[in-house]
């Protein structure tokens, strides 16, 4: 998890929840319980959260506060989940969202 800040000159070592496993498109990843799904994905180097409905363009984190809704993904089968404000839970199934589905466009 190279993208985590280990120690911050002002904030020190930030407290984290317990380490949990979740899946991203079926692949097992680790994150901290309670942190936003988006933070866990970012820490694992995941940039693309979804591809848009019309143009099939990639999108990721944009506002990080739940306002812009660009970072939505299919979480536990539910589409359009704002990953930047949804806490990570052990065993979560997080999938790239294609349009409003977890199925890639060619399979839709």
């Amino acid at each position, binding site marked *: 998890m190279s993208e985590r800040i280990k120690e911050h000159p002002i904030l020190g070592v930030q407290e984290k929840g317990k380490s949990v496993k979740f899946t991203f498109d079926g692949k097992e990843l680790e994150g901290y319980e309670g942190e936003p799904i988006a933070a866990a994905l970012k820490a694992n180097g995941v940039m693309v959260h979804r591809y*848009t*409905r*019309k*143009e099939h*363009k990639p*999108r990721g984190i*944009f*506002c990080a506060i*739940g*306002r*812009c*809704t*660009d970072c*939505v993904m299919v979480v536990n089968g539910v589409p*359009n989940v*704002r990953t930047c404000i949804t806490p990570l839970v052990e065993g979560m199934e997080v999938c790239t969202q294609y349009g409003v589905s977890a199925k890639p466009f060619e399979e839709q």
Partner: protein
Amino acid sequence: MNSVNDRSRDIGPFVPGPDDDMLICRCEEITKGEIRKAVHDGMWTLTEIRRYLRTGMGLCQGQTCSRLVKGIVAKELGISPSELEPAASRVPMRPIEMEVFANEAPDEKEGE
């Protein structure tokens, strides 16, 4: 509000621009060119633009693009952006699951 607006006023012809394919509404994937064309089709208020094109009608409800759309429409109409009234704000401020919206807490007496 309710100022006389003659939709026959000449705003000149639609002239294609080099950045017409710039995406403006990120949720509904509406471009600058589509917005500009809609103005020339008579959509002169932000409410009309929104209803006609769906700008700001997606998941975020215009939280990101409304200011951008306003600027484009104002420019096309040759007016100041502050003359354009933003589209109505509606409940809910954030997307809310039907089952949650449906689940109203029982009335309690004042207090805790």
